[in-house]
């Protein structure tokens, strides 16, 4: 793909093509390709049930793909799942450490699973970094959501993985904890750890170097996050002035207008058919009192556009073959 930064063609940590997985009749992931360069933060976006979790599970060897092939950390995703697991840190959507074990016991257990050396030292180090050294004996189940998430991250970093697979890591975590979490992800990325993270949050998507958008198990958009609006092909007009709610209602059925989003006291009116949109804008500009100005479409508009376009995948798709 030509989207990679031309300066340093970093080696690919993940390089898979045609990954496909069906559960019964339902094709959850449909010929999915992805190339992830070393040290990148790659964002996985898409509605619920779009196949994000299934894709991540296939990448780390928890699921065997029905079709497709490729490598993860240089190992074959079909045949060398065992080798991949040794170097991947996988953080599940749901807290999956033992609630009836203490914090230290959990970390100790994980350390043993990966047979890490200097285990005691590294567990102590992790506890210190977490700021949980004095609560090491507390049962993990008694921690709050934010702490559980930090503990889970610490657990999957214990064996110093090359690749982090994070499945909606910040779901149900407060904004402060989310920001701290992302600071940590940035630090890891700077050290050369590759991060693949699925999320629903816009502010997190913005933090990613690359973004891929999935719906119905199919990849719709994939590229550096800066290029996403361009890839979506959206033109956005900004409207300021009086009587915006009435205007918003009226605009929605006008030709060329595909999306009207409210940002505080302004409206963002977007569409992919630029000529039709401009004609509409001209007409409203002449009639009304509001001020219109063309602006560069941002990531946010692009995502609202994508999200609005894809219904929840749990609903039965009508008129779709897959």
């Amino acid at each position, binding site marked *: 793909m030509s989207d990679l930064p031309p300066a340093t063609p970093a080696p690919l940590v993940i390089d898979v093509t045609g990954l496909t997985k069906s559960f019964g009749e339902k094709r959850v992931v449909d010929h999915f390709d992805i190339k992830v360069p070393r040290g990148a933060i790659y964002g996985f976006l898409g509605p619920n049930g779009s196949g994000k979790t299934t894709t991540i*599970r296939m990448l*780390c*060897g*928890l*699921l*065997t793909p029905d079709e497709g092939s490729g490598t993860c950390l240089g190992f074959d995703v079909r045949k060398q*799942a*065992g080798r991949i*697991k*040794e170097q*991947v840190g*996988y953080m*599940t959507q*749901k*807290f*999956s*450490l*033992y*609630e009836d074990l203490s914090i230290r016991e959990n970390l100790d257990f*994980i350390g043993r*699973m*990966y*047979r890490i050396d200097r285990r005691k030292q590294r567990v102590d180090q992790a506890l210190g970094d977490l700021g949980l050294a004095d609560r090491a004996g507390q049962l993990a189940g008694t921690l709050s959501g934010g702490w559980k998430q930090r503990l889970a991250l610490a657990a999957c970093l214990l064996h110093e993985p090359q690749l982090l697979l994070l499945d909606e890591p910040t779901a149900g975590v407060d904004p402060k904890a989310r920001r701290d979490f992302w600071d940590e992800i940035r630090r890891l990325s700077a050290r050369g750890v590759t991060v693949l993270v699925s999320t629903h949050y816009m502010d997190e998507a913005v933090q990613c170097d690359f973004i891929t958008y999935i719906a119905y198990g199919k990849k719709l958009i994939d590229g550096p996050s800066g290029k996403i609006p361009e890839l979506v092909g959206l033109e956005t007009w900004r409207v300021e002035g009086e009587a915006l709610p009435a205007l918003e209602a009226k605009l929605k059925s006008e030709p060329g207008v595909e999306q009207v989003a409210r940002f505080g006291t302004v409206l963002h009116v977007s569409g992919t058919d630029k000529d039709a949109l401009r004609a509409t804008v001209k007409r409203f500009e002449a009639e009304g009192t509001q001020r219109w100005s063309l602006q560069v479409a941002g990531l946010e508009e692009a995502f609202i556009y994508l999200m609005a376009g894809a219904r929840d995948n749990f609903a039965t798709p009508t008129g779709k073959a897959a």
Partner: protein
Amino acid sequence: MAGLSLQRFSAVLIKEFIQMRRDRITFGMMIGLPIIQLMLFGFAINSDPRHLPTLVELNDNGPLTRAVIAGMQNSSYFDFRGPISGVAAGEEALRRGDANFVIVIPEHFERDVVRGHNPQILVAADASDPSAAGGAVAALSGIVSTAIAETLTGPLAKPASVAPFGVVVHREYNPEGKTSTNIVPGLLAIILSMTMVMITAVAIVKETERGTMEMLISTPVRPLEVMLGKILPYVFVGYVQTAVFLVAAMAVFNVPFEGSLWAFFLGFNLFIIVNLALGFLISTAAKNQMQAMQLSFFTILPSILLSGFMFPFAGMPAWAQFIGTGVPATHFLKIVRKVMLKGGELGDVTGELWALVVILIAISAIAMLRYRQTLD
């Protein structure tokens, strides 16, 4: 009616039915279990067992002897498996469980009857098998009287009031006919099957239910490591249970321990491992702890009813014996009874030990195939 709403009530009712229908395994158990158990146990269990394997030591051979043997055969209680010679051979057959009865017709039996010396037929019964002996022994006196009435006619006919010969029954291995002697050794098989299977199944399913299994298999851990690591702690629990059982059996119930400790030790270790493997197998099928409990219970009933614990194994129809042969408790029960009551040595229980090994291999193979390192 304040606070009670028919609509809300029926909403809950409908929801429950929908959930019940969706939970296929539980639904299947609710419908299938009673039917299977009714068919299985209704036909298999027989508290008046017939066709019990019997050996006969013929030290005399004449019309009267033949009439007695034929009468016993016709009663359908006894199934003659052939003649034997010598006391030792008879005892050996009883201890190995090849026969439930050994019948000894004494020398000069016919002559002594005719002369009115009142000779005695010896019936040695394996009384370690509860209720096996009861019906058969009770039927014996009737069979004998009939045989005499039909054979000794004319001048040899005896007045009905005088019995021309006696039948002496030796209840081997449980001379007092104590129920506890029958039940207690068998209970170890039941206790171990019940707890070992259930504990393992639930412990493993808990991982899946809480989501920790996903974390576990995302690490490089191997299936065998998980299986052994989860099973071994419960082997220890099994040891504790067995120790408690042995103390209670000997101190409280006065059950003897006649045989080889070594044979017993091998047997119960093997049996514990078989049960743990079975629990592991169940855990690969059950989706939650509730289902694991139900499936475990499903395996426990055959252990109680088809193993020979409550009802004599030999008295069941052939197909039920066939199913029972696949139940680990059947073999362990034989080991415990042979060793504790009959003084069995290692050589006496090799057949049962091998049977357990075969069952273990079969269960483990299926369990390992079903347990995946992936979530497929």
